[in-house]
């Protein structure tokens, strides 16, 4: 089967190590995962994220609709503000995680995972029943590039018509970049400061604007980064990966996403009743962070033990290039959630020692990530 090509495919084919990622031809790395990872933590890296789902939701009842499908408080958004949340099934299982941006009272931009594009659009469409709202899939009509790292604002400013520093975290604003109309959001998936740029009116069949912006970003010093660094960066930041750490069999309460479930909303939303029940009863497992205290690399699917007893499974794991440690996320019974608690990870035939650590993020926020004080 022919792989789907994104807006930036031409660059990947020439410079990257391209793999099949959920049906898309995407680069896993250009120079290497480790240097790309470090570039984002120390300076600035760019990612092609135009494989992601991008949908306009419009209409007089768009707020009511989005408050019905999203667990977070969409009604509380003002123009130009976005919010991270999840969509749940009635049983509380997670359909996907997403960011919803309010452009105006009747127009929102909804951004979700590449691997769920068909499923999410169908899910949203199905849930429009009874609401005066119209959905338009813009994924193939709009390019998307993420610019991430402590120098992201400085790098983007070199090719932007106005200073991107004026955009606050989780806000979105129209800005001309390389002369083209874009929406620029101060969001990302790396833990660092940065932007996600939506390149308007740029069809994937002739993506000249997105390619120009990408090449301009490379010229002004941004490091092109592949999916390998995207994954290692989000893991170090303790950010959830749909399909690994969350899916339709996990709920936001056990996933550590209670903070995006807004029970204070007056209206019903998908999963509300089930999630209220889960909160009242308490969870049977919870997502924890583990760091190994012996050598080895924990990976997705490896089992976690307390002595002889199997207590859970790793959902994401790997090396943390900045921390120089082996880290993992795993669902364990809640009695194991306290930092310092000792566990073992079964790596092939060996039980390797580890301990529970804080994981959102794994790193020290005074040294890495968007909260660090700028020197």
């Amino acid at each position, binding site marked *: 089967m022919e*792989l789907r090509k994104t807006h930036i495919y031409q660059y990947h084919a020439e*410079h*990257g*190590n*391209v*793999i*099949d990622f959920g049906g898309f*031809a995407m*680069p*896993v*790395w*250009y120079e*290497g*995962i*480790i240097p790309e990872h470090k570039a984002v933590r120390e300076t600035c890296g760019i990612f092609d994220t135009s494989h992601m789902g991008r949908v306009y939701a419009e209409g007089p009842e768009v707020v009511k609709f989005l408050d019905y499908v999203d667990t977070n408080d969409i009604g509380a958004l003002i123009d130009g503000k976005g919010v991270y949340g999840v969509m749940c099934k009635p049983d509380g299982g997670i359909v996907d995680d997403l960011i919803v941006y309010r452009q105006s009272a009747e127009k929102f931009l909804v951004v979700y995972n590449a691997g769920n594009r068909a499923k999410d659009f169908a899910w949203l469409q199905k849930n429009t029943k009874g609401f005066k709202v119209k959905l338009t899939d813009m994924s193939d009509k709009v390019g998307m590039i993420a610019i991430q790292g402590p120098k992201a604002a400085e790098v983007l400013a070199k090719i932007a018509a106005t200073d991107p520093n004026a955009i606050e975290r989780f806000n979105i604003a129209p800005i001309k970049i390389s002369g083209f109309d874009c929406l620029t959001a101060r969001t990302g998936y790396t833990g660092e400061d940065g932007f996600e740029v939506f390149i308007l009116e740029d069809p994937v069949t002739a993506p000249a604007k997105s390619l120009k912006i990408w090449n301009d970003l490379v010229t002004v010093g941004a490091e092109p980064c592949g999916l*390998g660094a995207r*994954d*290692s960066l989000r893991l170090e930041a303790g950010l959830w990966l749909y399909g690994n750490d969350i899916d339709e069999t996990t709920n936001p309460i056990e996933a550590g996403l209670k903070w995006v479930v807004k029970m204070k909303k007056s209206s019903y939303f998908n999963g509300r009743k089930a999630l209220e029940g889960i909160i009242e009863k308490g969870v049977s497992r919870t997502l924890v962070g583990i760091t190994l205290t012996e*050598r*080895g*690399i924990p*990976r997705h699917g490896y089992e976690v033990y307390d002595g002889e007893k199997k207590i859970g499974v790793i959902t994401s794991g*790997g*090396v943390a*290039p900045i921390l120089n440690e082996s880290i993992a996320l795993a669902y364990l019974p809640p009695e194991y959630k306290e930092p310092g608690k000792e566990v073992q990870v079964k*790596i*092939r035939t060996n039980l390797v020692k580890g301990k529970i650590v804080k994981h959102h993020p794994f790193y020290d926020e005074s040294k890495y990530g968007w909260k660090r004080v700028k020197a």
Partner: protein
Amino acid sequence: MEEGKGMTDEVKVETGLYYTNEHEWAKPSEDIVVIGISDYAQSQLHEIVYVELPKKDAAIAQGEAIGAVESVKAVSDFYSPVTGTVFEVNEALMDSPEKINSDPYGEGWIAKVKPSNWDANVAKLMDAEKYKQHITTLKH
């Protein structure tokens, strides 16, 4: 994996060594056999960050998983190309696993084995010419 940047670089196949389908090599040297992974294997894995070495003095069999080589993204089991007893392991790889990337046939060796039936083992391995053909078929 589609053919990308790293794949088009010339892959080195050293003559005088014997190779497995899974890209391990074995090099007989007097009464021992040195074993490791090929240049093709290291280029596929890229950025090797961890090696699980075989255990010293362990009795191992040809085709048996006796360790692993891991990159940031992937784990690759290391199958012994030879039957015998592990005589020495390359401890330097614990601190510098990247030696496998930079010098897979030299400093990146994984273990030295005292073979118990080398003639039978070598009959199941490929020489450099055959292995070159083998990796050519994989690259397309």
